[in-house]
């Protein structure tokens, strides 16, 4: 496979004068490519002439596996699609199945789902911030981000016993009710966390070197972004309103107040800024959800065997931490989905990488890749 891929790259080593093209592999084992993405980069000196993402190093055929499992079993696999934001994928699949079968979770379960998905968004954005800063050479924010992320994971662990792959949001509700001390602990965390956002911003936002490295770098124009299917915070950085929570509200997102964070420049700095603002929005969202949380059942009564109606199909989407997370399911009257397709934000976001980095420097590949917030299992599935 290696030879096949590399032979497709036209290398300029025939000409008598001029520079040889320098073909370098960034990845699959590279400190900066998050996971095992492989980039074949053609260089002229320091300048990037071409970037070819090579996918599939983390392909686990999750979609095909899901077609051979019952609907409740699939939830376990959704954890592995985006392990940094597993709650979101849990929710995406649970919602898709519920819509396919005409079920609805009780209100308490819906509020709980919102709380956990927003906490997950915080955790994911924190990890992203650290990794992005690390990509452009600042190592300290990573530790700061992880410090607060640990507290969020503690909250998750307290509720469902897991810190990475939760399997918490189930079809028809959630796995288990929260403990009585969850709400005060969550509030305490939010009070502790909100001032920390300012601390991150002090470290990075207006640091002159950070500005040099991110302002005007990797500009996604709205047209390019929409054509390539870029979504989530990466597209909102270009000023395109694309928040599924606003445009097609699910759960109770239409009952809470929050702003869609938009920036206009479309460069790495705008994408960074969007995510930092989303941290604040999520905090206020979680506070509202905690206020509205009322006692009640956490699961609807499900039929003993969960079957989709024959010849049914659904495309259901949510806003995951990385952007639009869509699930396409086709039911054929059996206990298994006949077709299962994940529409993952990272895959589409990675698509623009070549366009954004051509003519820039090697270091900019890392800045752009970091700012797009891609997670390799979401790309490869």
């Amino acid at each position: 496979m290696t030879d096949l891929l590399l032979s497709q790259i036209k290398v300029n080593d025939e000409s008598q004068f001029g520079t040889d093209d320098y073909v370098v592999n960034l990845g699959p084992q590279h400190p900066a490519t998050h996971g095992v993405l492989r980039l074949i980069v053609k260089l002229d000196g320091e300048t990037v002439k071409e970037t070819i993402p090579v996918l599939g190093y983390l392909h686990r055929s999750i979609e095909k596996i899901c077609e051979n499992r019952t609907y409740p079993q699939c939830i376990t696999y959704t954890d592995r699609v985006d392990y940094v934001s597993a709650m979101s994928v849990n929710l995406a699949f649970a919602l898709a199945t519920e819509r396919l079968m005409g079920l609805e979770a009780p209100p308490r379960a819906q509020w709980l789902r919102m709380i956990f998905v927003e906490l997950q968004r915080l955790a994911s954005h924190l990890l992203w911030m650290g990794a992005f800063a690390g990509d452009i050479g600042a190592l300290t924010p990573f530790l700061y981000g992880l410090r607060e992320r640990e507290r969020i994971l503690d909250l998750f662990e307290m509720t469902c016993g897991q810190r990475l792959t939760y399997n918490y949001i189930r079809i028809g509700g959630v796995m288990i009710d929260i403990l009585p001390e969850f709400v005060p602990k969550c509030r305490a965390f939010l009070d502790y966390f909100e001032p920390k956002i300012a601390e991150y911003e002090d470290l990075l936002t207006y640091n002159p070197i950070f500005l040099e490295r991110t302002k005007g770098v990797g500009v996604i124009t709205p047209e390019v972004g929409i054509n390539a299917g870029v979504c989530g915070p990466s597209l909102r950085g270009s000023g395109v309103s694309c928040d599924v929570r606003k445009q097609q509200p699910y759960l109770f997102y239409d009952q809470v107040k929050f702003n869609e964070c938009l920036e206009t420049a479309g460069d790495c700095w705008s994408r960074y800024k969007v995510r930092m603002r989303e941290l604040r929005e999520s905090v206020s969202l979680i506070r509202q959800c905690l206020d509205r949380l009322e006692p009640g059942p956490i699961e609807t009564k499900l039929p003993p065997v969960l079957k989709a109606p024959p010849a049914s199909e659904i495309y259901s989407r949510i806003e995951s931490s990385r952007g639009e997370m869509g699930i396409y399911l086709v039911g054929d009257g059996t206990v298994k989905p006949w077709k299962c397709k994940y529409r993952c934000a990272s895959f589409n976001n990675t698509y623009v990488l070549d366009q954004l980095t051509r003519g820039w420097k090697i270091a900019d590949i890392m800045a752009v890749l970091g700012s797009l917030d891609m997670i390799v299992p979401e790309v490869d599935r």
Partner: protein
Amino acid sequence: MLSGENIVKSVSDLLHQLYAMVGLSAFKGVLDPIVAAHVMFGFISVFVMFLVWMERKVSAHMQSRIGPNRVGIFGLLQTVADAIKLTIKEDIKPVHRDKIPYYIAPIIAFVATFAGMVVIPFDKGMVVQDLNIGLLYIIAITSFTVIAILSAGWSSNNKFALLGGFRSAAQIVSYEVPLVLSLVPVIMMTGTLRLGGIVEYQSQNHWFVLYQFIAFFIFITSATAEANRAPFDIPEAESELIGGFHTEYSGVKFAMFFLGEYIAVIVSSAVAVTVFLGGWLPPFAFLAFVPGFIWFMIKLLLVIYLVMAFRWTFPRLRVDQLMDFGWKVLIPVAILNILVTGFCVLFFGKGV
């Protein structure tokens, strides 16, 4: 009274008695420098190990971690343990290496930076050799590191290493110019290249950092770049080039590059202390009862702490931004600084 000069004198007296006892008094002129060189080497080895530990503790403190705390008290022996580990590691020889430069590069990287320490006066008279061309010597000998880095990058036959080597060469030579230019105003005011002489000049006037703040800023910036430290660490930028020029190095050979980087930090900080911060002089006259070398070490550690703080708070510059900063900002400012200093010295008279 405890002072560097007295210590050196008593040590040398003791040595001379020893030489006389074993019948070597005729060679004492030769043996003294041997002892001095050994003492300096031992001191630097221990100090570098301490600095590696200090950097890890400083970074841990900045990142709200604990840092090394297992080996020895406060983890002080962590670096020793690491050094032993690196020594007994497998000596990996990449297949397509150029044998001779591949092995010589780490040695040069170590020697070139260490040699700079020889002329640094830790106290009045406490110096291996206070050369009359001290500053020029340091600049000349420490710039040998570029050869080490370039040959390391070239000989490993690795694309990242080669790219890192080229980057490093471009960076070091670019920042060499402002580095040297920032020292020229000081020489103009003192009229000597001897480091001891520069400190003595400051004992009669103020520290140079007061007159030459711009030069001090340029010097610290360029010295950080010379030592390949963040935010100028593009030759070994781990998120881009994995390890840069030392990608293919492991074990002791890697340790030599690593130590070389730290010694480069010591040398440039020591020069900054000597030239701009008054060397062994106390900050106020009434503090003169504290021995000079203690003042020197305090100042040295402060400057090194500053360089470490740079590394753990700033992102990394991009290669073109780095070059722009060096050529378009630092060099013209340094040249203007020379002219302004020259004008002031002549206009307001000797000694400013």
